[in-house]
């Protein structure tokens, strides 16, 4: 008879652990930008039915949740090495990795199928590509290999307003491409500001984030370059006559504030502000406000001024 000690059977993962796999905070930004894309689209002779609009946003959210779960499945070992992520369901051992993978695949496939059947094939195809882009191109391929991971991978987060727009119109025009470009150019300064003050975590996990590979000075300079590029891109919808003054003024004011905060990150460095990273934390926090406010202004512009 065996005398080996009986191992207690681990508890099953709670539904909250499954919910956390979908990265709800990131999902809220995805839902918001997707909804803005849908609402800012021209209503035309056949405006989108509210049920179909709701389905489109739900599919965008579930697809993003599936991509996030696949990201956590792939990065469970890296997450265990970082203070910020060590308590997530997988690194903390509350959930089996294969469960997270299957959950992610189920959400991704389900969202693409429902989008295709309920909303439209073009929106569904772009949703499928955006999930593939985030889970495979960004998470598996680029993130562990190049400090430009955020620049190219940021494209994954830029798809939701484009999908929202296409769900409403069934067509790709210049405006959804500009919405894509705004988030694409917004992503590097947003993430690099974060990477500057959590750099030790990324270094411990061996992720080649820009501050780890190129150093603080180069990262700060690149933050400023992207902030400079973001201003005309965010203004482009107004300058090209695709929106009214409300959006144009908002883009100008928000872009100017973004630029000033990026300037403070890139220049006027002293040992004191190098230590407390106050400017970086402020830029990171403002970058989130920036995106919410800019897309909010886009919708307000469409609804108030037509």
């Amino acid at each position, binding site marked *: 008879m065996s005398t080996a000690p009986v191992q207690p*059977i681990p508890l099953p993962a*709670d539904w909250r652990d*499954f919910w956390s796999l979908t990265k709800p905070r990131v999902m809220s930004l995805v839902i918001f930008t997707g909804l803005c894309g849908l609402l800012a689209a021209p209503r035309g002779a056949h405006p989108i039915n509210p049920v179909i609009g709701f389905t489109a946003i739900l599919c965008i959210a579930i697809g993003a949740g599936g991509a996030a779960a696949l990201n956590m499945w792939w990065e469970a070992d890296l997450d265990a090495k970082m203070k910020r992520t060590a308590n997530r369901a997988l690194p903390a051992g509350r959930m089996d990795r294969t469960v997270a993978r299957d959950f992610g695949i189920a959400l991704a496939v389900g969202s693409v199928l429902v989008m295709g059947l309920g909303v439209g094939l073009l929106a569904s195809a772009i949703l499928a590509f955006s999930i593939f882009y985030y889970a495979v191109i960004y998470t598996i391929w680029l993130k562990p290999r190049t400090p430009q991971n955020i620049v190219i991978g940021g494209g994954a987060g830029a798809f939701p307003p484009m999908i929202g727009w296409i769900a409403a119109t069934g067509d790709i025009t210049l405006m959804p491409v500009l919405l894509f470009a705004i988030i694409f150019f917004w992503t590097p300064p947003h993430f690099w500001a974060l990477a500057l003050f959590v750099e030790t975590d990324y270094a411990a996990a061996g992720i080649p984030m820009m501050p780890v590979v190129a150093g603080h000075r180069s990262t700060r300079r690149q933050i400023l370059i992207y902030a400079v590029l973001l201003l005309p891109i965010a203004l482009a919808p107004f300058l090209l006559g695709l929106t009214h003054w409300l959006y144009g003024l908002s883009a100008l004011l928000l872009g100017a504030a973004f630029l000033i905060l990026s300037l403070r990150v890139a220049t006027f460095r002293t040992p004191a502000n190098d230590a407390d990273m106050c400017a970086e934390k402020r830029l990171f926090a403002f970058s989130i406000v920036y995106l919410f406010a800019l897309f909010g202004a886009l919708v307000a512009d469409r609804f108030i001024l037509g």
Partner: protein
Amino acid sequence: MTELDPNAERQRIIKGRNRVLALVLFGLAVLFFAITIVKKIP
């Protein structure tokens, strides 16, 4: 402080998961029903 009974805890977690799953499935059924009706309207 009382120690949690692992079996009771396991049952509680499974019950919670089943409830959430039932809610999600019910929501999806309602959604599919609504989509079908909307698509039928010319």
